[in-house]
């Protein structure tokens, strides 16, 4: 595996880490939003606040 391959692999792993962090942070934030506010924005058919 060349240096360039390793650099590209590293870049893709960073992207994966970004995805993981965003999912965790946004899910936590959604869980703290009242269900009625989320429903107002589009309707969660079961009335949950997400997550």
């Amino acid at each position, binding site marked *: 595996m060349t240096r360039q*391959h390793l650099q590209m692999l590293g870049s893709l792993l960073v992207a994966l880490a970004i*995805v993981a962090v965003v999912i965790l942070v946004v899910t936590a934030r959604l869980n703290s939003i009242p269900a009625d506010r*989320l429903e107002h924005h*589009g*309707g*969660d058919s079961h009335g949950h606040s997400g997550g």
Partner: protein
Amino acid sequence: MVGELAAELSGHVSREVEAAFLDSLTGGHVTAVKVVLASVVMALACYQLLLIAVAYGKLRLGFLSKAPAAGAHRAVGDTTAVILLLVAAACLSQYGFEGEHHGEGSGATALHVIAGSALVVVLAVKVALLRWWPGLGRLLPLLGTTVFVLIAVTWLTSAGDILR
């Protein structure tokens, strides 16, 4: 007249079926799933800016050279485009172009619909340029910047508004 009515009814029924499918797919958390996916797209779009700046030599990082940055930009871009189209399809099947049940008539909704539609069109042009018209490659930076701005506007007028 009857034909128009049948077409409208068929469209309505089709959207109901799609909405039910999305509902079962997301366990009834369609909005929450869309917010998460749209936020992932927004974050990856920021990362894409960094990668392309390195690929064009505008930003020099000792640990990342131009070619791998360009390769990663392409791979992340392809993935982001697929997620983006899935979110767009979910939005359309849930609300349609009219934005019903979603603050109908509000300025933010109109802006969201316009920016979202423009985003899909510009993205399609960018992909077409990459695949079939390489001679017009000089337009890529402009199209890429436009895609980023449209993603930001679309996110701010929907997911960003919910998360604030």
